[in-house]
């Protein structure tokens, strides 16, 4: 195993575990600046996690083992997903493979666990969020698979290592399919990490919330797991977008530089998007995602029209 692979593994672990909250903090900070406020520091999410870690938990009645295990399941799925994601075209062999569809499966399992926890407490608020989340997931997963299909066309594989490697080839950039897949991926990122116009992460109003809903009953360390998972999902989706869509030729160090720049640029873009764009009605989001899917079909047609893999 080369030194670069070890370094990539270190970035996978350290970056994935530690940098998620920084992305959330950065988006909040940039958003505040754009709105003319000072805003909380970039480190604020870390302070909140530390505060919560020290607090005692609350176990609502009624509950079963499902409620108790759900935060651990969500965090474990997110944690394993971090290991599947290559950094700078490299990743050590953790024994879990690097398949894109396994990543999708792990994220689905995390969503499933949280939705069940919302049922378990017999409370009304959690289910408002999880019903919407599951409804949107139908369209998000459909679109995500189409996007992955388009990105898998050049390497002919759903292995994330070869998919990310294929994005370094200059000829990929001449294909409209790649550009279309990028647009589709942007929509998936917005929906998957719960940002406007799909969801408003700053609100706890039960009439509008989606991703915050099932978290309401949790406290203490269990809430830390859930908030960390939400933050790490930012890292996963942004790194995935950079690895699959951005050009990153050159040495390992240059690639890490491109990745850092890409994640920062996407975070700022998300903040700008949240500032200028109001939240959509939840029933209109499927339309947005559906148009992304239609675009992906056009992308496939263009791929075949310009000779595709031949």
């Amino acid at each position, binding site marked *: 195993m080369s030194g670069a692979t070890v370094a990539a593994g270190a970035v996978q672990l350290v970056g994935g575990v530690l940098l998620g909250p920084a992305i959330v903090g950065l988006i909040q900070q940039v958003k505040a600046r754009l709105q003319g406020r000072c805003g909380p520091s970039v480190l604020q999410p870390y302070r909140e996690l530390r505060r919560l870690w020290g607090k005692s938990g609350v176990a609502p009645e009624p509950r079963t083992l499902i409620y108790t295990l759900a935060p651990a399941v969500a965090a474990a799925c997110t944690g394993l997903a971090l290991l599947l994601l290559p950094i700078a075209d490299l990743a050590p062999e953790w024994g879990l493979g690097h398949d894109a569809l396994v990543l999708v499966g792990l994220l689905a399992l995390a969503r499933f666990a949280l939705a*069940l926890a919302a049922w378990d407490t017999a*409370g009304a608020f959690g289910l408002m969020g999880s019903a919407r989340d599951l409804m949107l997931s139908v369209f998000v997963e459909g679109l995500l698979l189409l996007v992955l299909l388009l990105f898998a066309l050049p390497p002919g594989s759903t292995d994330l290592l070869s998919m990310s490697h294929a994005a370094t080839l200059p000829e990929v950039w001449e294909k409209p399919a790649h550009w279309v897949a990028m647009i589709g991926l942007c929509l998936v990122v917005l929906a998957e990490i719960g940002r406007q116009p799909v969801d408003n992460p700053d609100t706890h109003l039960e009439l509008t919330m989606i991703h915050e809903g099932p978290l309401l009953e949790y406290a203490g360390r269990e809430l830390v797991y859930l908030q960390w998972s939400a933050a790490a999902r930012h890292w996963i989706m942004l790194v995935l977008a950079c690895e699959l869509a951005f050009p990153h030729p050159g040495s390992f160090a240059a690639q890490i530089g491109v990745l850092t720049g890409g994640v920062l640029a996407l975070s700022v873009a998300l903040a700008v998007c949240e500032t200028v764009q109001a939240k959509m009605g939840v029933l209109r989001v499927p339309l947005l995602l559906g148009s992304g899917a239609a675009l992906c079909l056009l992308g496939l047609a263009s791929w075949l029209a310009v000779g595709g893999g031949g």
Partner: protein
Amino acid sequence: MTGAPQALAIAGVLAIFLGAINAGSSRSPRTGLALQSTGVLFAGAAGVWVLASGHALGAAFRSDIHPAFGLDPLSGFFLVIIAAVGAPAAWFARDSLRADGSGRALAVATGTFLLALIGFVSARDVSTFLEFWELMTLVPAGAILIARQDTEARHGVFVYLAITHIGGACVWASMLALAWHGALGGHSLGGGLAAFVACASLVGFSTKAGLMPLHSWLPRAHPLAPAHISALMSGVMIKLAIYGLVRVLFDWLAAPGPWVGITLMALGSLSCLGGVLYALMQHELKRLLAFHSIENVGIVALGLGASLVLRDIGADTWSAIAFAAALLHALNHALFKGLLFLGAGALAQAVGSLELDRMGGLLRRMPWTGTTFALGAMAIAGLPPLNGFASEWLTLQSLLHLGGVTHLGVAFAGTIATAALAGTAALAVYCFVKVIGLVLLGLPRRPECAQASEAPGAIRASMVFLAAGCVLLGVLPGPLVGRLAALSPGSVSLGGSTSLEVPGTGSLPTLALALALVALVAALARLAHAHRIAAAPTWTCGQPPAAALAWTSAGFTKPLRLVLEGFLRPRREAQIIVSSTGIVEAVAYSAEVPHLFDTLLYGPVSRGALRGARVARRLQSGSLRAYLIYLLALLGALLALARIGVLG
């Protein structure tokens, strides 16, 4: 070396036969059912041997009508499916059937049904094949009528028999055409007749498999049967229609052309999306599970269709992978759907009605039933690390690779099927979150649910058996997938024992993923609970949580119903009766999602058929003179035909 497995298979069949006789003649059916359960396990062991060794037993296929029986690896695999569901189902029946006349009759029907299923996969000539095909249709109809005598059951059975017999006619036509041309065990049939046979067998077998739009009997008939018969119908019987389809399309027809595969994929996409969507809108557990059978058969059809198309364009490796994916999903579905139907039976025995909105809180009262049921629900929702994920992963991979071929039509079919399957997987998660939430979690919504007690031993044992199968095939599907891929006409070998190593993917290390997931969850849960956790009631704005205020099935699925309003066309009526003083006295509310296939497709067809029957009835006037004229006209017509030489 073939003596031992042959003896095993024969002993198994004899044991089922004796078990059926014993169940019918002795006072309690328990011994007979135990004998049946053991017998079907013996037959399954013979199936495992045939599948693992690759050697055939008994006769080979022949195109004549002299009865012959035998097993080849494909039959062996379906025999394993029969045993995997049949053994726990018969064992389950020991505690679910009463020791009275109808209980004994149902036990005999169970044994007959098992024999019919085994007979169908081991039939080696056309007459036995068709004979057991019909028996397989009729026995469950009988079982339903033994268990229930109400009008709804009779109507359901009538619809079941009517629709499956239209399909059955197509099966007869295709099988007789194949046998006439010696395609069974001889040269595969090609040419123009092959297109006819392909169409007839697609209609015939997909009716029995429950593929949309020929599925209408399935959600009617499956919920009516006793739980263990439902498990056999949903888990095994509809899979044997897939067996017939595989035989005809892969073995007996020579390369029928890409349109067959694309048609199968279209039917599969429609079934999996439509099945799960209507399942989501159901409010009764067994009816919901029946709609999920349509979804899962659709996934199997997607895999088979992809395999046919890939074979046509010369991608033999991927054709074999898609074939293995379809068969693996057939087995997986048998396991988790068997488990869920048996679980539904156990729940019904404990609390009575299976109305989803009137259950709740059963995981605490029935930990064994609840846990195994939740495992089955996770598996059917296609979540890692259980078996549903492994087979859906393989199917999705083969559809994704279909999108990468250079043929425009094929690539589009593959892409649309990919999106359909991805949406289906997410919808299945949605649906089973709803089921687990309404049935097992939250507060009990009926006194029966608050006082429910755990199911008896035999029922628990049968569910644990099936749940263990779901976990085992989720963690170690590798060896089986290798064997199944080798069964496809392309004959390729796939590596990997603890993981699915498929070229062109990042591989699915099933064992490592499961272990890592379990270890990480255990460690994290331990770490969180090392800290103090205080108990408190759930926050519902200061009130105590009340069962009457809990979410309902319709409420939880409302976002999706609103999004898909144009397609689902939900109907609702609210009537508020206000007194003259302005006080609301009563509110009448009803809502439903009508099954559009019934209103838009089956309704007009059955109305047309009735109208045709009214016209045809005029011919049967009852007047002797009219009948004499018919005879005379027939005679004249025959003479005229003979005169011009048409009759040869």
